[in-house]
């Protein structure tokens, strides 16, 4: 691996990690959902600083080309994340539906009761 590429990867992964941390710090990301991103970006940092880890993983998984082992891990991780998001969206869709229904019912119930008396 060329030293330029390595430098770019290290800088990129560190920036990514800093960006995620900043998002959590400024409360734009909920920690619950950010956790997986923090772990992911940290592992990017580790992999770019110590590329040996990728070779090590590929050896364990018995994959000839280390890049393929990396792809395998990342795709697996992405699938997991997308699935977790689908679950979260489904749950929220159900909750929003019930909220909308209750608001509609409440509005109909309180109709005329909340208005200021007419002069």
């Amino acid at each position, binding site marked *: 691996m060329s030293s330029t590429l390595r430098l770019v990867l290290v800088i990129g992964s560190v920036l990514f990690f800093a960006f995620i941390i900043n998002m959590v710090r400024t409360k734009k990301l909920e920690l619950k959902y950010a956790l997986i991103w923090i772990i992911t970006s940290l592992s990017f940092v580790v992999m770019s600083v110590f590329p040996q880890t990728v070779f090590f993983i590929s050896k364990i998984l018995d994959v000839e080309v280390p890049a393929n082992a990396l792809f395998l891990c990342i795709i697996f991780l992405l699938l997991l994340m997308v699935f977790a998001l689908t679950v979260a969206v489904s749950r929220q869709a159900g909750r929003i539906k019930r909220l909308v*229904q*209750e608001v*509609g019912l409440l*509005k109909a119930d309180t109709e005329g009761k909340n208005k200021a008396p007419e002069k």
Partner: protein
Amino acid sequence: MKTLVIIPAYNERENLPKLFEALKETNGNFDVIVINDCSKDDTEAVCKSYGIKVITLPVNLGIGGAVQTGYLYAVYHNYDIAIQIDGDGQHDPKFIPYLIKRIEEGNHLCIGSRFIENEGFQSSKIRRIGIKYFSKLIKLLTGTLITDPTSGYRACNRKVISIFANDYPKDYPEPETVVTVLRNKLKVSEMPVIMNAREGGTSSITNLKGIYYMIKVTLAIMIASISKKSVVKDYE
């Protein structure tokens, strides 16, 4: 028995006045509620001008979410029977008293079916094939013959109101919910009704959506037939 007629409506200002007149003519003993699914036209004002109670949803939920709001209302206001009728003028309210009678006789769910006496508007050929297919599928999975599983003209009792208020699919709900009720070993019957072709507005199912509809509902029916039994909570 305390009866509620639920009318889901989305942009139905053209059709509602006629429906309200027809409802009045039945002289039936029931309350009417319109669920206005965030219509873009003045559906809400039309209902109010006829003195009909209307619930306007702040966000468009789709037919399933709107109808379910009606069932929630039935739970909160302790109704014994709920009747669902489309706001687009396809369903003639004169059958409501007969539907009520069917529920009073002990049926849990009674569906108004076009295909028992094959009178009135029979829908297009392609739709009839689709409906026949759902009917066969439901018969295969539950052992009960439902001739018109897509009918949105139906009546149900407290048990089914409680199930529907708790769990109702978002879109294309009818066939799936019939299976849910059958799955809970409740009594479902059908009654012949005459439906009209729609006069104003457009159907929610266009040709483009047809294929998606078939696949989605097929899956939904299959899943409903292996789902856990619903929790039935009585309310007061």
